[in-house]
């Protein structure tokens, strides 16, 4: 947008301390006499070149170009302001009026006071036509030489100087030379996909330049004795020869010879692999074996929380992982230091009593001293809980409690709750 707002470039300039007034006041200094510079010729052409300036100036350019494109396509060459305001229906009448005035001030439109109408000057029509032709968002590389040749034709048509013909010719040669260098760089980079794109454009540019050179009489007939024609012509022929040959090789190789190699059989050795690997990018090498390489199984020390969180996520119940108890350290002891399983010992003793037909519990619990009696009583309760009817039901003995207390004739205790051990009734 150019409608009065500060452009990014202007803002950037002001940031470095150069105001617009300073920029406008600045004048280039000549290093030699004016007549020895290209300025005289350009100043003479300014009436025409200024039309571009008026049209492509800094302010409201898209509006002006669109307006002129619209008028240039109209059969009638003269318009009154009212007609213009009706015709340009995508702008308000006031905006149309102001833009038309600005274009007239810049000599893009001419105002006829007698008829009270505006018209495009012949030069403005040419400028409008070029603006219209160049209203593209980009010029494909394969069309660049074509466009430059059109510029030579235009220069011929308007009777421009030799420079105006040779300049686009030189630009077209430079395009071919750049194409050649670019293609060599792509070959060195092993960039086959990019080469496919480049060779299509290069062949097009070579074709266009060949056509120009085959018909050089049409373009440069007047300048056959000009030293520049001979020099540029020779350079153009060399550029066409080099790029043409290289482009043909690339075309044949990348588009037509692939199948031929397959037919002959793909022969290679370790040296080929070495050179190929050295050229390949690390991504291409890695891609060859895929991203899903397997690794050997191990039992690595990873976080328990992460494992449980992952399991809970897999089960679709993330809340499970949130309620895990705090971890505790479990003591690990050597086998010989491990304490005996008192409950299992008690269960075995009870089962032995039951197997022999049954007896009071004190005959085993209180058979030794008091501390042993206390330990065995506790183990009996534990064995009953773990292996009895409320436990895993493996205990092959029954405990039948009695009422009150009874005297026990044993060294481990004097009195005990009466309890009889018998065979299981289940």
């Amino acid at each position: 947008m150019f409608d009065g707002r500060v452009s990014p470039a202007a803002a950037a300039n002001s940031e470095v301390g150069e105001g617009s007034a300073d920029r406008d006041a600045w004048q280039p200094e000549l290093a030699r006499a004016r007549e020895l510079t290209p300025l005289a010729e350009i100043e003479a052409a300014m009436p025409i070149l200024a039309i571009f300036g008026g049209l492509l100036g800094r302010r409201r350019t898209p509006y002006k170009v669109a307006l002129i494109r619209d008028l240039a396509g109209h059969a009638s060459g003269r318009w009154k302001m009212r007609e213009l305001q009706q015709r340009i229906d995508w702008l308000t009448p006031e905006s149309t009026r102001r833009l038309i005035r600005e274009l007239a001030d810049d000599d893009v439109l001419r105002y006829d006071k007698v008829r009270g109408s505006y018209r495009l000057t012949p030069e403005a029509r040419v400028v409008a036509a070029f603006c219209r032709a160049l209203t593209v968002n980009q010029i494909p590389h394969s069309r660049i030489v074509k466009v430059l040749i059109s510029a030579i034709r235009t220069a011929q048509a308007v009777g421009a100087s030799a420079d105006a013909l040779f300049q686009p010719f030189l630009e077209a040669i430079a395009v071919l030379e750049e194409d050649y260098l670019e293609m060599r760089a792509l070959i060195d980079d092993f960039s086959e996909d990019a080469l496919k794109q480049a060779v299509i454009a290069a062949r097009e540019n070579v074709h266009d330049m060949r056509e120009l050179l085959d018909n050089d009489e049409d373009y440069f007939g007047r300048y056959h004795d000009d030293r520049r024609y001979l020099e540029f012509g020779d350079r153009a022929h060399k550029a066409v020869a080099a790029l043409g040959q290289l482009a043909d090789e690339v075309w044949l190789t990348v588009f037509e010879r692939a199948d031929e190699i397959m037919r002959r059989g793909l022969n290679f050795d370790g040296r080929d692999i070495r050179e190929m690997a050295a050229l390949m990018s690390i991504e291409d090498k890695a891609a060859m074996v895929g991203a899903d390489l397997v690794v050997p199984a191990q039992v690595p020390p990873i976080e328990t929380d992460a494992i449980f969180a992952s399991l809970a996520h897999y089960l679709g119940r993330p809340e499970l992982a949130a309620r895990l108890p705090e971890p505790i350290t479990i003591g690990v002891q050597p086998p010989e230091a491990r304490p005996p399983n008192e409950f299992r010992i008690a269960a075995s003793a009870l089962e032995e009593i039951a197997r022999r037909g049954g007896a009071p519990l004190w005959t085993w619990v209180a058979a030794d001293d008091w501390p042993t009696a206390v330990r065995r009583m506790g183990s009996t309760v534990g064995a009953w809980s773990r292996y009895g009817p409320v436990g895993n039901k493996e205990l092959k003995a029954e405990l039948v409690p009695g009422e009150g207390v009874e005297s026990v004739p044993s060294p481990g205790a004097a009195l005990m709750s009466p309890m009889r051990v018998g065979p299981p009734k289940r």
Partner: protein
Amino acid sequence: MTIEEICRLLSTGFVASRDVPELDDEATRTEVQRRADAVGQRLFYSSNADTYGFVMAGELPDAPSHRPAIRLDRSHRAVIAVCWMHLRWLPAERARLVEGNGHSPSPGEPSITIDDLAYQLKGQMTKSHLDQKIVPHLKHTGYLEARDHRLYAGPMLDSLDELKATELARENMLRFKRVAHLRQRADEIERIRRSGEEDTRASD
């Protein structure tokens, strides 16, 4: 050996098949495989190394704090690819060719040196990084083995998707052959172009 002992061996490293003859038995192998499946692993056999081991099977679920003890990143995979081409692909292609023409295959186990690897990864990793980080990790994970200052294929090199890797390697080799031909022709064309320029300068 019991099933548990075999599983213990295989889950902690590779073992030559001669040391686990029990795995010749179909039922034992099936049971070992079943137990490996149950913990997200699978029984892996390297035919070239005649070796068994357990490898991870399937994708890892997402766990943000998970820090895998074994990981193969792009650099590892690139080195594996280069080694695979020299140690597996080239011998296989040669064997295929000699089968066709009746010659005997070249003797000796294929191998590669660190220097050779470093040349093929030049500009992508330094030789010291390759020597001190990448190769030791690949030896640890069973992709490579080192003997007498040379690197040989480890059992895990047989775990690659051979068909896919071969297809990609052949594609790359075809491309390389085409570009190598182009380079040669480009050099010839450049020589002609330069001699033309020199002739012009001489005539001036």
